[in-house]
C-alpha cells in the first residue's frame, strides 16, 4: 500500500480546496491546505488535534476563512453556500440527534431542510432508514436509540437529500465490533456501488483501509500527503527481505551490479528494488552469485507504516 501524489488538480475536481487557512484566535488550525478530490472514498487521517474536524467544517462553509476557497461540484461555498450544501451530507461526531422526534420524523424533517418537498422527504426518510437497517425502529423516539442506532440514524439524515458527497466525522466512534463492521459495510457500499463521494475523518487507520481508495494526511493543520491507497505504481520501489546461505559478498556485488540496494538487518538482507521487476532481479543476482535463497519476501508497506512515517518526518522537520 502506498501513497502517491494525486493526479487530480483542484480545478477539475469534484471537491476543490485552495489555500485554505483558518485560525482560532491566534492559533492556526489550517494552513494553506490545497487539494482536489474526485468522487470516491477518501480517508482524512491525522492525530488528534491535527485539524480534521475543522477541515470538515470548512468544507461545510461553517468557518469564517482567513484565506482560501472551497468548491463542491462546481459551487463555490463563499458565493453559493446553499447550492454547495445541497450537495453535501454531513454526519457529525458529537450529538446530531434532534430531541423529541422519532427516527423517521427527524430524517424527514432534515430532508425538508435539505430542500426536498415534504412528501418526497417522508418517502425518502423511510427508504434510507431501511437502507441503514433501522426500518423496525423508525417510529421510536430517537433519544432512546442505542449508540449504534444513533450512528446509523446520523448516516441516514446525511443521506436523505441524496447529496453527492458524504462528510463522515468518526462514524465508527463508540460502536461495538459488530456495529463497526456493519457501518464499514454501509460506507463501502455507498462509495463502491452507489456512487457517493465520501470523506471519512477518523483516527482509525483500519477503517480507512477498509473503505477508502485515497487518503489525506493532516498534521498540525498542514496537509502532509494526499495520495491513493493502491498497489505501487510503475516506477515505484519496493522492499524485499532476503535470507539464504552461500557467498554473501558476491551476492551483494551482483545486486549492486543490477542497480539494487541491500542493507543488512540482523539475519536478513533488506533489498530495495523496482516494484515491478524487483523479485526477478533479486533471483537473477542470486543465481549469478551462487547464493542459495531460503526466503524472498516482499515487505509490504502498510497504511500504518506510511502514516507514522509521514507524521514522524513532519515532526523531525519541525525539530530541525
Amino acid at each position, binding site marked *: 500500500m502506498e501513497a502517491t501524489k494525486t493526479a487530480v488538480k483542484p480545478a477539475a475536481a469534484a471537491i476543490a480546496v485552495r489555500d485554505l487557512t483558518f485560525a482560532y484566535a491566534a492559533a492556526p488550525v489550517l494552513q494553506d491546505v490545497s487539494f482536489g478530490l474526485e468522487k470516491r472514498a477518501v480517508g482524512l487521517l491525522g492525530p488528534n488535534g491535527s485539524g480534521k474536524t475543522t477541515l470538515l467544517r470548512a468544507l461545510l462553509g461553517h468557518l469564517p476563512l482567513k484565506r482560501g476557497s472551497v468548491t463542491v461540484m462546481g459551487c463555490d461555498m463563499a458565493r453559493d453556500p*446553499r447550492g454547495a450544501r445541497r450537495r453535501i451530507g454531513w454526519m457529525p461526531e*458529537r450529538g*446530531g440527534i*434532534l430531541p423529541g422526534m422519532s427516527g423517521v420524523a427527524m430524517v424527514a424533517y432534515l430532508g425538508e*431542510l435539505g430542500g426536498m*418537498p415534504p412528501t*418526497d422527504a417522508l418517502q425518502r426518510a423511510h427508504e434510507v432508514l431501511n*437502507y441503514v*437497517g433501522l426500518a423496525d425502529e423508525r417510529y421510536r423516539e430517537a433519544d432512546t436509540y442505542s449508540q449504534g442506532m444513533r450512528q446509523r440514524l446520523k448516516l441516514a439524515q446525511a443521506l436523505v437529500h441524496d447529496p453527492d458527497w458524504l462528510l463522515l466525522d468518526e462514524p465508527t466512534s463508540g460502536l461495538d465490533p459488530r456495529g463497526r463492521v456493519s457501518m464499514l459495510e454501509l460506507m463501502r457500499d455507498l462509495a463502491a456501488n452507489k456512487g457517493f463521494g465520501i470523506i471519512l475523518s477518523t483516527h482509525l487507520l483500519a477503517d480507512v483501509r477498509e473503505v477508502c481508495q485515497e487518503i489525506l494526511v493532516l498534521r498540525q493543520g498542514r496537509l502532509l500527503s494526499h495520495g491513493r491507497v493502491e498497489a505501487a505504481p510503475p516506477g515505484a520501489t519496493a522492499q524485499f527481505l532476503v535470507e539464504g546461505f552461500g557467498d554473501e559478498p558476491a551476492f551483494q556485488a551482483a545486486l549492486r551490479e543490477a542497480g539494487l540496494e541491500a542493507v543488512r538487518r540482523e539475519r536478513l538482507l533488506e533489498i530495495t528494488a523496482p516494484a515491478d521487476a524487483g523479485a526477478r532481479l533479486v533471483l537473477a543476482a542470486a543465481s549469478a552469485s551462487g547464493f542459495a535463497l531460503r526466503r524472498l519476501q516482499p515487505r509490504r508497506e502498510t497504511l500504518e507504516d506510511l502514516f507514522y512515517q509521514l507524521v514522524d518526518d513532519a515532526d523531525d522537520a519541525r525539530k530541525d
Partner: protein
Amino acid sequence: MPVYERGYRPWEHSGRRARAPWWTIARRGIAEPLKSRRLLFLLAVAWVPAIVKGGILYFTFQMGELSRLIGGKWTDIGPRGFLTYLGWQSPFVLILLAIVGSGLISRDRRENGLALYLARPLNVRDYVLGKGAVIMFYYFAVTLLPVWALCLFGYLVTSGATGMQMLLLIPLQALAYCLVTGAGFTLVLLALSSVGQRTVFVALWWVLLYAGTDGLAQIMSLFSPGLQILNFPGQFLNAGIVFFGGEPLCEVPPVLSLLVVLAYAALGVWVLRRRIKPVEVVA
C-alpha cells in the same frame, strides 16, 4: 439483512415545490407543543378573559352608558380598553412563552443540532426566523387573535354605526402593537435561549426578567416613579399607548417605552448574531 439486499435508489424528484426552510422550522416548532394537553388547556384558559371582554362588549352595546356607570373604566370598549385587555394577558404571555420558547435554541445547542441545521442549505436568518415564528404564533394566539375575535364579535352585536366606528381601527392598532411587542419578546427570549443549554435555566431567566423586574420596579418606583423604566413587561405595555392612545400607564413617556422595547429587540439581535453559529469560534 446484508446491505446489498436492502436496496437503495437515488431520490427521484416528484416535481412538487419545497417549503421555505424557515417555514419548515416554524411548522415543526408550532406543532410540537400542541401535542401537550397541558398546553392546550393553558391556551384555552388564556381565552377566558376574552370571553369576559366579549360579555362586556355585548352589554355595553346593549345597555349603552348604563354599562359604563356600573363597571366604570373596567368596561371601556375603546382602544384604551383593549390595551387594558392586553395587560390582562400578561401572565399568560409569561407562562406560555416560557414553555414554548425556552428550549427552542438551547436544546439545539445542547445536542449539536445547530450545526446540523446549518449544514443544510439554509442560513442563520432562516433559522432565527423559523424559531421566532414559533414564539410569535403563540404570542399572537393569546393577544392578537382574541382582540380580532372580539372586534369581529363587536361588529356582529353592535346595532349602530357608532359601535362599528369605535371598533374600526382597533384590529390595525392591535396588529401594529402585537407585531412590535411580539418581535421584542421573541428576540429577547431567543437570545436567552441561545445563551444557555439547559431549558429549565432559560425559563428561569425569562421568569426573572419578566416577573422579577415587574416586582422590583414596583418597589423601586416608591422611591422614584421614573424607575418604572426597569419594568420589563411594564414598558412593553406602556409602549402600547403609542398605538392605542390615552394616558400613560406609568411615569415613563410612552415613546420612551417604545424606544426601550426597540432597544431590547436590538439587544436580542446582537446576542443572536454572536451566539447562532455552527461552530463556536473564539475571536
